[in-house]
């Protein structure tokens, strides 16, 4: 057996051990002696991380693995196996997943300390790691789908980790169900892929792809391009998982889960699965211009849309959540523009700084006794310096300050979008630029409101304010290094680098559609630097100098503010149109009328009709002999007449 089989298997066994025996371990060793359930998970994930590094090295040496483990489902032509494909793309994902997961595991030791579901938390984290690894290592669509759904399940478990809270339970369900809407399209896409190509293995599908380009298919009476339909169906799944418009509504609610979960699942790894999937199936998307434009438009709109909402939110985790949606929009933009490598590059850098942002937020929450409202914070800089400095680095990175990792990836995306030459690419590029400005603004709004100025919270809280324990601080520092340096692997040519990251991924996802002219490169870079500095400066001016300005702006643009503050009323709309409608239909027409009246009416109606007619018929039995004799005589008469009539005919 090859070592790579162990990469998902180790976290899986950690999960099994933990879920079965975790409680006992915790009980035996007790809270004080800190050999808790986390060691099993930690061990599993750490070894997976080490093996991933080995795998990356192997891939760099040119050993691409594509091997089947065993046959999962056989039915007719359908042969699906559980197998592993480890190429450059997978290698990147392996590193991202296992490293962030490992750090979040370490962080959780401190963060979840004393929670009664301690072992449960770690077992689910391990299960998530396993599922995510299965997702990225899959060598066929169905296994991808397996991982896809399993990470959704883990997300469900972990969002609803504090299930006693009704909001947490509802958010968990919402996340799962909204994702199911996306998966609906995804699963149909997988089926269409199978029916078109007769196989679900990536390699075979991509091989058969040239043969079906130009084929038509009838969908609801329209004849459309087959590849486009497949690509759009796959996009459905990606939209759901990566929280793009219009299925983004679950991600902000998902912040009900513990913060490490938000960092790992709802920022760094799971939500990027959509981007990963698009990159993985890049040949299919490349074959359909329509699908690419769709993806790019969705990405651009989502990026801008989410960034505007993030401007006015007061819940620190929600701001970061909307920022995640917005950054995922960038990745979609990149994929849509055909620059898959840069989408993945942004995914990779984003994983570090976004996980860091979340973990810092968790650290702040930890100190603030669970308070999330940034309006009630302030001046935390002096109490928690590690958290402050790391979060500042992350914010600088996300804002795209030159030299930090976020700068390289975002800049490249904007450039490649502009250069792609696809329809609407200009519009999307403008949206991306605006988003860059907004991103810098809201990121620093959080920084300034949280760490600068005076403490605006409850007076008593000041006694509790303290830096987080080392197990939490250590991951912050490691991630901060990542947030700063992760981008160095992909320094573009124009800055004297070699674009090493994109070169590395080229065998899998191909080159970008166009490098863009030198002039474009410099203009885009300049504009994006301008946007980020403007955003930071604007935030500093508004939230440090003129602290009453936000209030004034909010009042004078009252409608716009409440529109943004209420997230464009999307939740309310969905509640009205989807949720209510479902329940209405179910309760009224279906349950009460069709089932209750019509079907049950017929079913119970037949016996009651019989009973009714019997009640009428029994009146014939008067019990009076005279009536019976009369009827007998009448019968006799009738018989005689009948016989006579027959005789009459004969004669």
């Amino acid at each position, binding site marked *: 057996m090859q070592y790579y089989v162990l990469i998902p298997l180790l976290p899986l066994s950690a999960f099994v051990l933990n879920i079965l025996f975790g409680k006992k371990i915790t009980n035996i060793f007790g809270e004080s002696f800190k050999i808790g359930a986390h060691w099993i998970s930690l061990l599993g994930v750490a070894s997976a991380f080490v093996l991933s590094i080995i795998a990356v090295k192997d891939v760099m040496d040119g050993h691409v693995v594509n091997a089947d483990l065993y046959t999962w489902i056989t039915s007719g032509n359908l042969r699906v196996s559980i197998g592993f494909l480890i190429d450059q793309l997978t290698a990147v994902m392996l590193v991202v997943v296992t490293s962030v997961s490992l750090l979040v595991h370490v962080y959780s030791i401190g963060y979840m300390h004393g929670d009664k579901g301690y072992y449960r938390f770690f077992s689910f984290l391990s299960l998530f790691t396993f599922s995510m690894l299965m997702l990225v290592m899959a060598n066929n669509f169905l296994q991808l789908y397996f991982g896809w759904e*399993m990470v959704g399940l883990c997300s469900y478990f972990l969002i*609803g980790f504090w*299930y006693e809270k009704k909001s947490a*339970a509802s958010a968990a369900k919402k996340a799962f169900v909204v994702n199911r809407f996306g998966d609906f399209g995804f699963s*149909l896409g997988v089926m269409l892929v199978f029916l078109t190509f007769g196989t679900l293995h990536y390699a075979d599908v991509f091989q058969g792809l040239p043969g079906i380009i130009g084929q038509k298919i009838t969908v609801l009476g329209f004849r459309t391009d087959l590849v486009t339909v497949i690509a759009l169906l796959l996009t459905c799944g990606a939209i759901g998982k990566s929280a793009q418009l219009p299925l983004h509504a679950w991600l902000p609610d998902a912040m009900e889960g513990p913060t490490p979960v938000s960092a790992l699942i709802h920022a760094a790894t799971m939500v990027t699965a959509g981007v990963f999937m698009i990159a993985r199936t890049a040949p299919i998307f490349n074959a359909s211009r329509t699908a690419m434009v769709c993806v790019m438009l969705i990405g651009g709109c989502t990026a801008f849309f989410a960034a505007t909402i993030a401007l006015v939110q007061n819940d620190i985790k929600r701001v970061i959540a909307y920022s995640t949606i917005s950054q995922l929009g960038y990745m979609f933009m990149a994929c849509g523009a055909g620059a898959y490598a840069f989408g993945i590059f942004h995914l990779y850098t984003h994983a570090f700084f976004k996980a860091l942002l979340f973990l810092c937020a968790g650290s702040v929450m930890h100190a603030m006794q669970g308070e999330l409202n940034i309006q009630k914070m302030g001046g935390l800089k002096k109490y928690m310096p590690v958290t402050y400095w790391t979060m500042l680095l992350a914010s600088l990175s996300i804002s795209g300050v030159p030299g930090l990792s976020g700068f390289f990836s975002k800049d490249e995306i904007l450039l490649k979008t502009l250069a792609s030459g696809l329809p609407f690419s200009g519009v999307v590029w403008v949206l991306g630029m605006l988003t860059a400005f907004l991103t810098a603004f809201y990121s620093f709004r959080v920084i300034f409101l949280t760490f600068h100025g005076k403490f605006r919270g409850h007076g008593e809280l000041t006694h509790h304010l303290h830096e987080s324990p080392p197990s939490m601080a250590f991951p912050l520092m490691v991630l901060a290094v990542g947030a700063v340096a992760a981008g160095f692997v992909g320094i573009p040519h124009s800055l004297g680098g070699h674009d090493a990251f994109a070169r590395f991924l080229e065998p899998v996802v191909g080159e970008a559609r166009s490098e863009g002219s030198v002039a474009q490169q410099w203009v885009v870079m300049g504009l994006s630097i301008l946007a980020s500095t403007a955003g930071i400066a604007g935030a500093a001016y508004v939230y440090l100098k003129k602290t009453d300005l936000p209030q004034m702006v909010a009042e004078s643009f009252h409608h716009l503010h409440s529109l943004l503050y209420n997230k464009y009323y999307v939740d309310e709309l969905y509640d009205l149109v989807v949720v209510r409608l479902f329940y209405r239909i179910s309760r009224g027409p279906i349950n009460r009328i069709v089932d209750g009246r019509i079907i049950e009416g017929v079913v119970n109606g037949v016996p009651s009709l019989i009973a009714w007619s019997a009640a009428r018929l029994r009146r014939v039995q008067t019990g009076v002999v005279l009536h019976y004799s009369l009827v007998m005589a009448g019968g006799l008469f009738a018989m005689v007449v009948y016989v006579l009539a027959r005789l009459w005919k004969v004669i």
Partner: protein
Amino acid sequence: MRFDYPILSILIFLPVVSGILLIFVSRRFERAIKWFALTAATLTFLFSLPLFMNFDKGTSRMQFIERHAWIDDWGTSYFLGVDGISILMVLLSTLTGILCVSISWYSVKDKVKEFYIALLLVEGFMIGVFCSLDLFLFYIFWEAMLIPMYLIVGVWGGPNRIYAAIKFFIYTLVGSVLMLVGLIVLHHVADTFDLLKLMNTQLPYNLQLILFWAFFAAFAVKVPMFPVHTWLPDAHTEAPTAGSVLLAAILIKMGAYGFLRFSLPLFPQASVAMAPVMLVLSVIAIVYGGLICLAQSDLKRLIAYSSVSHMGFVTLGIFAMNGYGVQGGLLQMINHGVVTGGLFLSIGIVYERTHTRQIADYGGLASVMPIFAAFFMVFTLASIGLPGTNGFVGEFLVILGGFSRNRLSGVLAATGIIIGAIYMLWLYQRVFFTSVNERIAGLKDVSLREGLTLLPLLILVIWIGVYPDFFLSFMGTSVNSLLARLHQGPLDQSNVMNGVISGAGAFVK
């Protein structure tokens, strides 16, 4: 493959004879009666294992055949055998038998002896249904099973049990009577009840249509398909736990099994012609059954309606009439038996403690009974078809089958997955999450006996989910030969409406 001992007869008559023997045991020895019933059920299960081991997966012929002369004048004989379509159902029946005995250990308190007699009789007759290769014998088992089942619902059921039992009985009886008429017609034409001989008889198309609808009446009620499903929620809700489990796991599979065993091979052209109608009904059942779950406030009723939806997948798969669909449908039959059986067992466990089935009376159960919550979670996930559980494999194959037969039916069936997730997770949330409802505070978690009852099903959920090939390999050959038979005749799909009309006309005549 033949044994030197009649294994199928043993499987059928071991429980039946044990049930009859129990009649002579005094009702005072309750413990002895329970242990006896458990032993009988376990022995039956153990006897079914050699069947499993020695089954030859490479052939579509009937195996373990037993044939004895019975009533020669009518062309009927005592003829048993299994193939890839029925063997898994036999195994599921024997397994379910044990679980039903075990789950009723303390929950059935009065008329204990009679209860176990009825239970054992049902088990034996059910196995008989799945093994019979003679239509007359099949009909006898089919009807015989109804009587003890009627008693289980009507005697040991909930407050509204009489209504439910009578409804169940009349519904199924009406269907069965039409099937009986069909049987007689079939015998009149072919002069035999022997299934294998009948399969070699080419019936005229119009006759096939009539017979198809006659058999449809019986099978559709059992499945239950869309307009004739309303007995199911009532019967499930009122039945005792073991009754619900038997209903869900085995009894309603008999309808789908009937389609596969009789309707499709005996009336191939009619089945092909009527398949679109069946597909429409199946899709309606999937969506309708799922939507109606959202309006339910009773745990068992909700699961019962979800059965309607899931059985819609089964019939969709069968009438998709391609390898994926039929195999998926068959696997989905097993899956639904395992999963819904598990859900009903779980509800029985908690009902024994709280004596309420109203969802509103629960809440926060996960804090009170964590192990139970874990079990229920797995069954819930399997029910919504999460990959890695058995539900996914079945649903995927069925939808794939439906999709390749008719895209729209596949798409609509796939919406069933969304709806399924909504109602099951909503149910789970209302029962297990949020703060602890005071009515259920302090309940004991599952006992060892209850855990052991649920565990086999849990293992099956994961096993089929992770390595379904083991189970699919049993069916492959049989399904392929069935499909080959189905598609050998002239396919005339354009003439469906004419078929319906002439079929109806023939009925009138």
